[in-house]
């Protein structure tokens, strides 16, 4: 285990150009970092008046003096193994507090499929610059989002994937990010992982971003960005499974660029975190592209789970489908913003958006807002939003068949979520999520559900 550097805070990075210096072979990334610093300088931390952050208060996040991780934490293979997805045959790359851990990762990524390049971003910057350079930052450099700017300014490591033409990935890639308590020399740690996934024409790939913690008290920030490039007829499945510590902050952004007939399917499940901001930002840039945006946020206690969608239809004949559901208990709060932008050229756009919420307590809240910006005249855009409690008539129906009230409620809450699980192709992921859901539901322990 090596000690890397002195801690550098977010303010250091932004104000004084003090990101951890990149080694020579990665130094071509410096202009992106510089662009990030400049952009953050202009944008600054968003306040309440910033429409995009109206329902999410960053006061507490800003008060922390987040630093980059300096030490490799001792995490055992057994500790890492508990976060494997049962019954899923995948290739796993492990990061601890944002630092890559070869000792915990699969030795080889060959199982992903022939001709697929997969390595850390750090390594890709040095060894596959020609492949990476045209893509990295392409979807994030111009930004009005402070966390994206911060990520650009701090870009350093993450995962790089290149899938050549026609290659259908054999196994999914599991990017496991484990957070521990206290590798920042007393200060909370911030990591800014950057993943770049390039899927060429007619190819297919599945990537699972998975955020977990070894300590439920750990305070830290993960500010993750994944840039997905889906070439013509490519199919990309992206999963975000977020189960951070409930004292931690997570900002996850999925940027995706879809060319003709590309198909990107985003599945997000937010379970952990004190404050989570989940951005899904696809641009449908080629004719007949299709994008599925499927999500579930499950909050309790004081959790704040904010989902910001921005679906950009920039080409004709494309289809987008947004299905987000929230289940909120305790004093938790959910936010859903569904923005759909239809450019003038994007005729015959077919966009659907649905956001449904179930509130399990009097103090849980949700703010939902659709935002449609339509500049084309021949489009079909529908949106719908509902918020309610568990249906008492359904509870009575289940009880009248002998199920105790807590089981009846748990089954109904689970059923509400299950529709979203059914859209996921990976059955082991569904199963894992089902059991995670059940363990989070009040009094539902022991409920056995077949997925």
């Amino acid at each position: 285990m090596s000690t890397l550097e002195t801690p550098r805070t977010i303010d250091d990075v932004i104000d004084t150009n003090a990101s951890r210096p990149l080694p020579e072979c990665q130094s071509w990334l410096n202009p992106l970092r510089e662009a990030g610093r400049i952009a953050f300088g202009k944008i600054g931390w968003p306040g309440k008046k910033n429409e995009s952050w109206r329902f999410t208060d960053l006061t507490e996040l800003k008060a922390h003096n987040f630093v980059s991780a300096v030490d490799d934490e001792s995490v055992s293979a057994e500790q890492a193994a508990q976060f494997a997805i049962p019954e899923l045959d995948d290739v796993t790359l492990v990061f601890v507090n944002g630092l890559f851990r070869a000792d915990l990762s699969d030795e080889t990524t060959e199982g992903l499929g022939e001709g697929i390049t997969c390595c850390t971003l750090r390594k890709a910057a040095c060894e596959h610059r020609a492949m990476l350079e045209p893509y990295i930052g392409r979807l994030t450099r111009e930004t009005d989002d402070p966390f994206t700017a911060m990520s650009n300014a701090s870009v350093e490591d993450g995962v790089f994937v290149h899938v050549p033409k026609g290659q259908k990935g054999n196994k999914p890639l599991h990017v496991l990010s484990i957070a521990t308590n206290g590798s920042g020399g007393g200060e909370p740690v911030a990591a800014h992982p950057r993943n770049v996934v390039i899927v060429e024409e007619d190819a297919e790939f599945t990537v699972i971003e998975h955020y977990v913690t070894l300590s439920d008290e750990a305070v830290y920030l993960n500010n993750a960005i994944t840039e997905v490039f889906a070439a013509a007829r490519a199919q990309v499945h992206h999963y975000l499974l977020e189960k951070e510590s409930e004292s931690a902050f997570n900002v996850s952004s999925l940027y995706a660029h879809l060319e003709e007939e590309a198909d990107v399917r985003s599945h997000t499940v937010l379970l952990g975190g004190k404050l989570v901001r989940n951005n899904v930002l696809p641009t449908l840039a080629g004719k007949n592209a299709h994008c599925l945006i499927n999500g579930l946020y499950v909050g309790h206690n004081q959790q704040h789970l904010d989902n910001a969608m921005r679906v950009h239809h920039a080409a004709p004949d494309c289809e987008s489908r947004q299905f987000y559901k929230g289940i909120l208990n305790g004093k938790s709060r959910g936010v859903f913003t569904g923005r759909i932008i239809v450019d003038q050229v994007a005729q015959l756009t077919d966009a659907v958006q649905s956001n449904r919420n179930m509130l399990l307590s009097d103090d849980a809240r949700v703010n939902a807002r659709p935002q449609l910006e339509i500049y084309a005249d021949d489009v079909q855009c529908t949106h719908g939003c509902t918020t309610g409690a568990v249906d008492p008539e359904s509870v009575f129906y289940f009880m009248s068949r002998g199920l105790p009230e807590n089981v009846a409620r748990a089954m109904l809450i689970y059923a509400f979520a299950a529709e979203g699980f059914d859209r996921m192709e990976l059955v082991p992921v569904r199963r894992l999520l089902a059991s995670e859901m059940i363990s989070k539901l009040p009094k539902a322990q022991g409920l056995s559900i077949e997925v």
Partner: protein
Amino acid sequence: MTTPLLEIKNLHVRLEDDPDVEILHGVNLTIMPGEVHSIMGPNGSGKSTLSQVLAGKEDYEITEGEILFNGEDIDEMGADERANAGIFLAFQYPVEIPGVSSMQFLKAAVNAKREFEGKEELDAGSLLKHFRAKAEQINVPFEMLKRNVNEGFSGGEKKRFEIFQMAVLDSVLGILDESDSGLDIDALRIVSEGVNSMRDGNRSFLLITHYQRLLDYIVPDHVHILIKGQIIKSGGKELATELEETGYAPYGVNEAVGAS
């Protein structure tokens, strides 16, 4: 002397949310094991309220009287405990539950009852065997169990599935709340055959209906007319036929012809 299966004594019920509204004003009814009773009444007479109160719905408050099931007061029992004790309510409008398969639902229900009885859970194989046997008895396609609970079921399928659930749970008292409403003759016949197949001299039924039609298929031992929250007349099955001819007009109720 045999203990009645169900004994309702001077039952007064009001709405919990609106205590000024009393719906049942002293209902008396005794059902012996093996008997089929029918309660007939016009809209708003309190028929559905009676069925829901028996099943343990919490929107109602019993202000006077009592309900004895197998001789025991069930006032303190929740809907789930009543179901496990053997009371089954076939809903007028069975609830659609997307996301839960019928199979999963019934497995949970059967095992909840077994737990209530202090028995071991049934394993998957025994459950399937049980479901298959009952599906055959009630004439329900086994495929139905793979679909989500009532989701997308036709009116007839929903009612048939209710009777199937009763058979699976082996309940001793079936309360059928307007199980005939919205059914065509074929569906009605299938539902009725399912019910008749369960009549064994011990199991009892309470058929709640507006019309006499259902009683052509499931012949009751006793018929009661419920008007404005009280049973005003009781008799044999001929009372239903009489009612079919006269309507509820002789009892001071004006209903437009064909109203449901």
